[in-house]
């Protein structure tokens, strides 16, 4: 959104604006979640229950890889929009070249280091003799393709910043579709097992990357690949990474928490509990991502009107977003509370895993309508420029209340206690968020 401010933000009907901004964001956010879900479904149905556990073991490592991706990607795309706003195309092209080089360096270093220590890492994450082979087979392929994954995500976000958000979305959807086609082909058709899913993932990203690269090869585009622009530029690297550091740390924290969670699950419930979490996580994330997309749609509307002192409109968009968020999360809540076995059965036909996951799902989803409120409020503060509060709220749900709960509750309630940590932390952090919001709105009224 460089250049002129869209005047409609201050004039158009709030409900219409929200739909207009939220729908593309929801599609983009859901796409990546669907991608993970499809992988899990085919692995669960085509390879087996322990394969799902193996896959769940790799979540922290995948998060960590993504974290290193954001270290360059988020910063570089911010830098690119700033440069494009100033029509500084020369340096902008250097940013493009440097994203490729930096991702190659970071992507390969990460892959080499983790491949060397893959076994100890996976055991530390909670692997057992029964699950390590699946996790290993999957990760070896994924890590071998790590450079491609990094460059794909990096260039995709640059494509968006370079003024082609639609094409960036096409690339994202392309990977989802390709993965959905290749997964059954490799797993069922060719019998490649869990490695088939990994190969499908890397191949889908490869094809999508090729499509993006072709766009950047087009010399009639303002931002395109150019000889001599690939030399590592320390200034660009430093700026990108200083912007990307915060999202990196945030992902790092969530990776750390999942490790801790997996270890507790293994201790109190064994391998299948980890697999059950793999399923629960996929379901919960689908609804969470829809909600995240919705709040992204709210951000420019709330932010602009707050800046323009149109507090009536700020409150209206907050009220509407809260309403939609609670609705979305309640759908998740109701379907998982009423039909947990049916939801879980999409991923596996193993009765023991179904039983495990159904219990977990019901407990984990228990506070979900509240999570919707929590997410909206923390994004609301963020869009108004109160980063401190937004960070505190986001950390409170994912770390501050979760960690003590994870240490305490399993000692009392065992495996149920591990599951309970999530709704407990969700509830407390939601109450904190609501208190913060009410206090803020009061001072709002005074103004």
């Amino acid at each position, binding site marked *: *959104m*460089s*250049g002129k*401010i869209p005047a409609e*933000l*201050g004039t158009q009907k709030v409900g219409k604006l929200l739909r207009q901004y939220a729908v593309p*964001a929801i599609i983009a*956010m859901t796409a*990546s979640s669907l991608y993970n879900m499809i992988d899990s479904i085919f692995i669960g149905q085509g390879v087996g229950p322990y394969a799902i556990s193996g896959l769940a073991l790799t979540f922290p490592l995948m*998060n960590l890889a*993504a*974290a290193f*991706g*954001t270290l360059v*990607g*988020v910063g570089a*795309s*911010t830098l690119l*929009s*700033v440069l494009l*706003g*100033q*029509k*500084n195309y020369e*340096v902008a092209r250097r940013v493009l070249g440097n994203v490729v080089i930096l991702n190659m360096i970071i992507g390969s270093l990460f892959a080499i280091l983790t491949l060397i220590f893959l076994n100890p890492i996976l055991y530390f994450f909670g692997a057992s003799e029964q699950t390590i082979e699946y996790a290993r087979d999957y990760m070896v392929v994924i890590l071998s393709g790590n450079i491609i994954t990094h460059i794909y*995500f990096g260039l*995709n*976000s640059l494509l*968006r910043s370079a003024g082609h958000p639609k094409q960036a979305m096409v690339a994202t959807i392309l990977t989802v579709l390709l993965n959905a086609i290749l997964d059954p082909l490799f797993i069922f058709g060719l019998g490649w097992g869990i490695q088939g899913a990994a190969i499908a993932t890397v191949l889908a990203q490869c094809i999508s990357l090729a499509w993006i690269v072709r766009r950047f090869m087009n010399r009639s585009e303002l931002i395109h690949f150019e000889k001599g622009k690939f030399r590592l530029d320390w*200034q660009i690297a430093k*700026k990108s990474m*200083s*912007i*990307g*550091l*915060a*999202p990196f740390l*945030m*992902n790092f924290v969530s990776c750390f928490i999942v490790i801790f969670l997996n270890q507790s699950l293994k201790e109190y419930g064994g391998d299948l509990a980890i697999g059950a979490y793999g399923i629960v996580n996929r379901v919960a994330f689908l609804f969470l*991502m829809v909600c*995240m997309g919705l709040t*992204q749609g709210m*951000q*420019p509307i709330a*932010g*602009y009107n*707050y*800046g323009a*002192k149109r507090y009536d409109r700020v409150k209206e968009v907050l009220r509407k977003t809260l309403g939609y968020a609670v609705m979305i999360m309640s759908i998740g809540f109701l379907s998982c509370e009423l039909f947990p076995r049916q939801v879980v059965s999409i991923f596996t036909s193993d009765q023991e895993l179904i039983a495990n996951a159904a219990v977990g799902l019901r407990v984990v989803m228990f506070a979900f309508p509240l999570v919707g409120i929590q997410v909206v409020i*923390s*994004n609301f503060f*963020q*869009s*108004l*420029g109160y*980063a*401190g509060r*937004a*960070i505190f709220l*986001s950390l409170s749900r994912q770390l501050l209340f979760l960690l003590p709960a994870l240490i305490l509750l399993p000692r009392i309630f065992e495996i149920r206690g591990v599951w309970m940590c999530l709704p407990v932390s969700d509830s407390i952090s939601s109450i904190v968020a609501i208190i913060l919001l009410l206090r803020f709105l009061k001072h709002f009224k005074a103004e």
Partner: protein
Amino acid sequence: MKTKSCICIGRELGAGGREVARLLSERLSIPVYDKELLTRASLETGLSQEVFEQKDERSFLTTLRTLFSGNIVGEGAVSVLSEDQLFQWQSEAIRTIASEGPAIFLGRCADYVLRDQPNVLSVFLTANPTDRVARLVASLGITEKEAQECIEKGDRKRASYYNFYTFKKWGAATSYDVCLNTSLFGVERVADLIVNLLG
């Protein structure tokens, strides 16, 4: 002096940049834009002026803020009130003002924003440390120690803001057309020199 000429003044804290700008404004009868720029940006975007005043610099919180604007792959929309977006609008205001007639800009990377425009002179003003402290003590009514701290903080802030957005180095001779030391010449003669440079 040609019409639509602009003078962009970068300066160290306490180097007398504002005084030089005022003298130039009197001698050439063209307006100075400092905070007035923010008023203009506020008018054009419909956002209140306070928003621009608060975001007058680039802070570590900016970086933190980006992390909630999207998920791990950075799908997020840039916040309307982000420093980067406000810098963009402030730049638009600088360009509009420059297109309307001659102007003097104080800070805000105006030299970079107008780098492709003809008839733009960029100046950087420095002063000896003792003079800078003395000037701040006199104008702000603070102690010498406070002035010292002010200068250190101010320089760091200005440098990081300038370096981030312009890809040049704040206060380095290569970044500007002219660099002058006001301790050596005094603000009056510095203003005279700049007027002479414009021809």
